[in-house]
């Protein structure tokens, strides 16, 4: 299998730089999700990997082969788009077989590949059905299955779940995860949906303004964002950011009215400008505790799994804390908060993590 190497890849549309000098290797035989807000350049980058756009500058390699100027049909890639591409007026089996027939494979080999992928994607029961009879979620699975059955070395997914109805979304995520676990191919998957990215990715390449700002496993990128942008973009809600007026630096030591401990940041302390803490990184108690900081509860809301999201005011600062159902249900107007040092990420003036 191939890795995908991007060397100084840039794409400009007139004055607008969609992708800005990206140097990056997408590892082989794993799932890399390009994640970012709309306009970050993720789709343009994927389209260049596919050969649907040419870079303004830079080179693209599949393994050792440079493909910068190789047309799409000769790149040996599979592609799945937002809207399922299916052949109407024919059965699901035919839909999966068609590209294989043109590759002059034996009947036995074609059957083997179709049955295999139908098994993984749970399409066995619908192989004889006409595609018109099936819902959009199943049609998208057919589009996925057809690309997988061709066994290209690289498969590109461009927001394949975005336009699928809510009820089929979960089933598609489930079957994609199952599929990705079995495939040996290099997968590149574009989405703006953090849950999809965190669920499916081996590594997330987070993009902003045409560059990849961080690439890491879902856990790493969530736990250790390298920028305020990553801290904000991942998480629902994103990280709390505490502004400079709530931070006091003396030598290598940092204190704040938000926590009672003193944090030694060594030589990095001088650059500390703000800090971030995730909502679940703040411990909340309804009763006074030694060393805890008192906060006022301004709002309560519920979230996934019955956890409460509390809006807390510490002086003039507003932060959000996620707490268990029982704690959230019982707390009144006043709470006491602590923030463990390992849950605190300091950032410099530019928003880069220290």
């Amino acid at each position, binding site marked *: 299998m191939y890795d995908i190497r991007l060397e100084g890849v840039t794409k400009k549309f007139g004055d607008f730089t969609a992708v800005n000098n990206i140097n990056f290797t997408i590892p082989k035989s794993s799932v890399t999700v390009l994640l970012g807000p709309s306009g970050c350049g993720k789709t343009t980058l994927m389209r260049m990997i596919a050969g649907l756009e040419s870079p303004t500058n830079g080179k693209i390699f599949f393994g050792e082969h440079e493909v910068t100027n190789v047309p799409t049909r000769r790149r040996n890639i599979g592609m799945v788009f937002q809207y399922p591409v299916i052949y109407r007026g024919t059965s699901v089996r035919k839909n999966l077989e068609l590209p294989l027939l043109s590759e002059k494979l034996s009947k036995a080999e074609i059957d083997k590949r179709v049955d295999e992928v139908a098994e993984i994607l749970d399409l066995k029961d619908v192989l004889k059905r006409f595609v018109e009879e099936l819902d959009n979620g199943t049609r998208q699975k057919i589009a996925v299955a057809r690309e997988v059955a061709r066994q290209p070395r690289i498969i590109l997914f461009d927001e394949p779940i975005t336009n699928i109805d809510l009820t089929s979304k*979960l089933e598609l995520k489930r079957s994609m995860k199952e599929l990705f676990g079995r495939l040996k191919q290099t997968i590149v998957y574009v989405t703006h*949906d953090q849950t999809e990215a965190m*669920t499916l990715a081996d590594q997330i390449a987070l993009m902003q303004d045409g560059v990849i700002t961080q690439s890491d496993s879902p856990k790493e990128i969530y736990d250790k964002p390298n920028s305020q942008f990553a801290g904000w973009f991942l998480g629902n809600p994103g990280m709390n950011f505490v502004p400079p007026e709530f931070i006091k630096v003396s030598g290598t030591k940092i204190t704040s009215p938000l926590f009672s401990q003193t944090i030694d940041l060594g030589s990095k302390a001088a650059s500390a400008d703000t800090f971030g803490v995730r909502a*679940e990184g703040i411990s909340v108690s309804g009763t006074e505790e030694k060393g805890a900081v008192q906060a006022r509860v301004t709002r309560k809301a519920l979230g996934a799994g019955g956890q409460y999201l509390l809006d807390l005011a510490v002086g003039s600062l507003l932060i959000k804390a996620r707490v268990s159902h029982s704690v959230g249900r019982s707390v009144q107007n006043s709470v006491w908060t602590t923030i463990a040092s390992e849950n605190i990420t300091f950032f410099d003036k530019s928003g880069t993590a220290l």
Partner: protein
Amino acid sequence: MADLALDVKGLSKSYGNKVVLDNLSFTAATNDFSVICGKPGNGKSVLVRTIMGLETVDAGSIIVRGKDVAKVSAGERNIGYVPQSFALYPHYSVQENIEYPLTLSKATAATKKEAVERVAELLRIKDLLGKKPEQLSGGQKQRVAIARGLAKTTDVYVLDDPLVGLDFKLRERLIDDLRKTQEELKVSFVYLTSDPLEALSLARTVMILAQGKIVQQDSLDVVYDLPNSIASMNSLGFPEANILPGELSGTTFTSVLGSTKVKMDSNPTNVVAGIRPEGFFIGSGAGSIDAKVGLLENLGSEFAVYFNIKNSDLVTVISRTDNESLAKLKSKNVSINYKPDALVIFDAQSGKRVGQGVSHV
């Protein structure tokens, strides 16, 4: 009653033989954020249209500020409206778009100016007033559309699923904006949605809409902790609550989770049980069941863990900081347990709550 902004009583509406609103009643208090929450296909759109006066009712009253407006024309009801689709007039500036409903109602220039300033400040779109819709991002357009709905100075606003289709980060921000707006205006917001996470994040008061009726109305905490029906448990909660068929024999309920001792308020012939995702935990011991682990959906701060027990698909939620459980979930087969009191028993016919779990058997 003076503290009711909206008092809807016995509202009914049918199309031919199809009953869409079925003797529906609810109240919305002044200075409250009320969310009407129900799955698609339960009459939400028709309810909005009847309240706004865009659709006549067959029976019932819609009392706004103490006066029945059920037969009053839309323009005279004095209810603010943020519709679901946010078509802005492309040839008008943002300011003109926001002013438009006021222009229609022949407001003075001074009134319009004051209204625009108020909503532009609240929704942080002051810098955009001179722009045309095509120059705005999706989230900015949505804020302008919400501002247009709120520009009308009144004390009751109906918001019809205004965040549908927006991405995570925009919704996160607009949810805060909407809550802040309601608090600052001290008016009544009646917000309709089929998205349980939105309802959970926004509501102080919740009404559950199911099959053309409001089946439960109470504070968010109460509806969540004490759902009075299957519809109520199912409509409010994320991931959706698990519904389990089973058999009741005396005070023992038996399902794929095994046998649970229950406390019953009445004894219907057929029952089903509901259990919220957080009613489960990973662990062996008394009452534990062998389960096959399916998808782990990574929600950031927690995982929605889908699992299967004897061909029943179920879901639980595990915090990202619960390393012990997450380690166990690496194996495809785990022992899952549940809190007996998380099990709620419903009458299978009426859907009403009739009992609750007490202990493992």
